[in-house]
């Protein structure tokens, strides 16, 4: 196969590919050959809202851009639609020399079950657990220590996103991206003023009854009740858990239409008029709604209040990974600013690199709905990070009952 062709192959229509090479040509070919690909690919992002338009090539600032070539295939087990298809497709092949195989799971529990069932032979190289789940995965021997010498681009991360409680020395995990949780509603159908979790709960139980979707994970579902009632969702008080169960199972469950962690497409289909969601997925909902001929202006995103979640998903290498070398190369490559921002434009989550403002201004000046990706310090102050406590088991049980009750 012609090597040059392979480098320029991106997931975009032929006509677009042609315009892209022309544009690269007009810009005088200042960018190195590898970044010509990046440049074009940034514009090739396939959602209208995430389309960043032209980028300025390489970002200024002091970033490490080591790319370790690797080979073979790399199996990643991750959350749905969580990387730019260009990056896991053609770019990984041309830049890293690896062929990505990606499978998806809907919750951390699913991930853990799958890895435990394989007990070191699941065949996955990279997994993307949420931070707080890392200690139990270490304990069960499901992930292996990283070789940080193979991840020199780690220095690109903002110090806020390293050395977190769950992995104080980043021996096992590297931040992939982080985000928060809120909700999304159609203001022509839900006309009341919506600002807090309590508003969301009230709307779901009244005008939105039978028309609302919840994130399909136990901590988020129970967390909603804790936040709405002004509690910290890591509170281990048994009485609060009982109250949470009583309310959610007996009073709330019957109003739920679906448990859906990625409601964006179904929102566009018109399946729900309000839904709990993660900021990146809801951001994509705007473009999907436009795709489906709907009016995105009718829809409103509300970040959960008075408190809400800060979650961080991390790259880890699975125990018994068949290709750990490629796994390290991938993690390192994802920390290259241009790749990281390209991914950010696609999935709409903050990838946690240092000096993010400048980076975005330089690499993705046309980024839309940036307020759904980057939160103000005031907002971040209300965020709570999940802690894995014995209550998680109980929350999972509560979720189980909610599901049974909702189906009744």
């Amino acid at each position: 196969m012609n090597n040059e062709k392979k480098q320029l192959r991106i997931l975009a229509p032929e006509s677009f590919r042609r315009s892209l090479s022309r544009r690269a040509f007009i810009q005088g070919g200042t960018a190195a050959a590898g970044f010509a690909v990046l440049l074009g690919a940034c514009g090739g992002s396939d959602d209208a809202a995430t389309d960043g338009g032209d980028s300025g090539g390489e970002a200024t600032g002091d970033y490490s851009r080591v790319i370790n070539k690797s080979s073979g295939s790399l199996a990643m087990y991750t959350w749905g639609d969580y990387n730019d298809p260009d990056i896991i497709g053609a770019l990984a092949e041309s830049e890293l020399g690896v062929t990505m195989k990606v499978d998806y799971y809907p919750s951390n529990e699913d991930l853990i079950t799958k890895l435990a069932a394989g007990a070191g032979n699941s065949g996955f190289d990279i997994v993307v657990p949420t931070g707080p789940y890392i200690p139990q995965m270490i304990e069960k021997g499901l992930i292996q220590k990283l070789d940080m010498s193979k991840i020199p681009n780690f220095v690109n991360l903002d110090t806020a996103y390293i050395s977190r409680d769950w992995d104080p020395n980043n021996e096992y995990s590297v931040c992939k991206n982080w985000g928060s949780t809120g909700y999304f509603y159609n203001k022509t159908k839900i006309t009341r003023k919506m600002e807090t979790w309590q508003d969301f709960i009230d709307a779901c139980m009244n005008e939105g009854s039978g028309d609302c979707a919840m994130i399909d994970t136990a901590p988020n579902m129970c967390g909603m009740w804790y936040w709405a009632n002004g509690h910290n969702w890591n509170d281990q008080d048994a009485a609060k858990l009982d109250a949470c169960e009583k309310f959610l199972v007996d009073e709330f469950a019957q109003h739920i239409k679906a448990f859906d962690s990625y409601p964006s497409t179904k929102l566009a289909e018109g399946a729900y008029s309000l839904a709990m969601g993660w900021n990146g997925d809801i951001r994509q909902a705007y473009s999907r709604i436009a795709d489906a001929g709907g009016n995105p202006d009718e829809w409103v995103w509300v970040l959960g209040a008075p408190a809400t979640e800060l979650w961080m998903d991390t790259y880890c290498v699975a125990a018994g990974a068949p290709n750990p070398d490629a796994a390290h190369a991938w993690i390192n490559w994802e920390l290259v600013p241009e790749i990281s921002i390209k991914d950010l434009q696609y999935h709409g989550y903050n990838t946690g690199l240092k000096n993010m403002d400048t980076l975005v201004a330089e690499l993705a000046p046309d980024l839309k709905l940036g307020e759904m990706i980057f939160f103000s310090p005031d907002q971040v102050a209300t965020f709570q990070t999940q802690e894995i406590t014995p209550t998680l088991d109980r929350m999972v049980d509560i979720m189980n009952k909610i599901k049974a009750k909702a189906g009744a």
Partner: protein
Amino acid sequence: MSTTAPPRTVRLRAPRFALALPSIFWYTAFFVVPILLVVVYSFGTKDSSKLVPVDFSNPSTASYGAVFDETFFQVFRSTVRISITATLLCLLIGLPVAYFAAFKVTEKWRAIVLAAVVVPSFTSFLIRTVAWRIPLAPNGVFSKWLQDIGLVGDKGIQILETAGAVQLAIVYNYLGFMILPLYVAFDRIDIRLREASKDLGAGRFSTFFSVTLPLAGPGIAAGVLLTFIPMCGDYVTATVLGGAKGNMIGAMIASQFNQAQNWPLGSAMAVLMIAAVLLTLVVGATIVWLVPKLLMLIEPVTQAWRRARASRPRNVGSKPSSISATADTVLHRTLGVWTALVLVFLFIPVALVFLHSFNRGNSFTIWSYAVSTKWWGELFDGAVFAQTALLFAAIVVAALVARRVLKRRSQFGGGYNAWIVPSGLALALVVNGLITNWYANLFDFSGIGDAIRNSFLAALGATIVAVLLGGSAGVALARRPGRWSTAFMVVVFLILVTPEIMEAIALATWFPRIQDLPIVGHIFTAGWGPFNGGMNKLWVGQSMYASAVVTLIVRARLSGLDESLEQAAADLGAPPARAFRQITLPLIASAMIAGGLLSFALCLDNAVVSSLISEAGSTTFPVALLGATRSTIKPFWGVGAVSLFFVTMASLWFLVVILRRGGASAGNIAATLTGS
């Protein structure tokens, strides 16, 4: 009838079940023990700190109590309700179609109707289920049109994420499995019996209800079994369409294992589900057994009624023939229209999958009002595709030329000639690396290419296992029955009635336990040769149901033929091995091939077992798609499904051509396909 030669008795010292030994071993290791283990789990308690999250220190029946807890039990009831309703609907919708195909149309149209029933099922089950989201979406084109003409309110169609959507899709998904056995049953009815009934003065309706329907009984029973049991364990349909309200027990069991990590509760649910399925079947069988008896009781009444009816036309003295002729035409037309409607219904999602693979937008289910081949371009590398097609065409031409030349020169009989093209083609494909490498270059997006390849590899391996196991066990059952065969048939029956989700969790929890065994463990972890551990697991998982089906088909085929041929061969001095090769094998070949075809189709679509046991590197198309349904499905999944459809159709066509050359008629294949 024949005298048994002394040397032969010496040779036959092997136990009667010797030929069934591989199956006995296979079913013990991968069905009986794992399922028993699930039963054991159901008495444990949840302990999520362990790798196997079950604690056996204080066994209890608490999990069973929890299932009978009001909330879970409601899901149970609604599952059985949805399944029974769907089975009855399938029967009501399918019966006229099967009747029409069997009695009212010419041979040519019969083939067309049957093909039209079968063809949609060669499109991935999962993508067809997903495709129902397209016409049902409240914001969709169809819904907007209905709003415009005022048939539905402002909110559009409100059926997605409800039990209604699940009900609809389940009827759709299993209708074909009802129509085919019904057709075969009708087709086997001796037409003279129906004629006799009419000659004796019975009307159209009495003939249907007193002659045709009772004779079709076994077909109805087969259809009910083939639809009801998979429905009970269906978790794909509910996951994709059901939302919170359309939850079914299969989905709930899967979530106990995957999400809640509550294996005891999931196991208890699974055990109770099998019990519920068996109970429903027993109740159903009792009803079927009772109804004729009750009818017998009122026989005098019906006889009198019939006599009265039969004498009525004479009393009136009008022109019965013309009335009857008009009625015949009306009936014929009505049945025809009904069949056409059902076929349209069957093709709606398939057509939508095709259409939406050309969708310009970014999600499969949302039509962008613009046609584009962009997703095709993204999935396939055009140049490589053209190259491959060209190469393929060249090989076909070369094979045809070779055949012409050989035909002219050779002294071979026609039978050998027939094999030249297929075998030459296969050889050329292997030599060119097309079979082994085509997927690697053809797809730009390697994930789908790998998934399609893995689907084929898994289905092929499982089919080979199923045919070997089922073939030998079928022969043993038919030729060497004994006390063992009752026990064996119970296991086969259990495999057939165990909902897939139960087998899935049984295997998913069994493999981690055996992975430290010396050789077996190595096979299921590291794999062997080019096949990884996950692929080996898939072969085991997918072969289970398929081998049970092949066993039944082969047994049925041989039971119809007595052993005189084999005995004659033995009398003529053929040793058992030779008698088997030259007599028995040709007898069961068509049954094995037909069983193999059916297995292949079933395995290719297998989502439930596969998704619970598959690993990275052995992800099949349905498993990958099931993963993708959790977020946004891109239109290239439609492209993948369409490609898979064409590849499947091509392979089946290839097989049918070989079968035809081997002498089996298409009708035979269809009949054996449905397991009757």
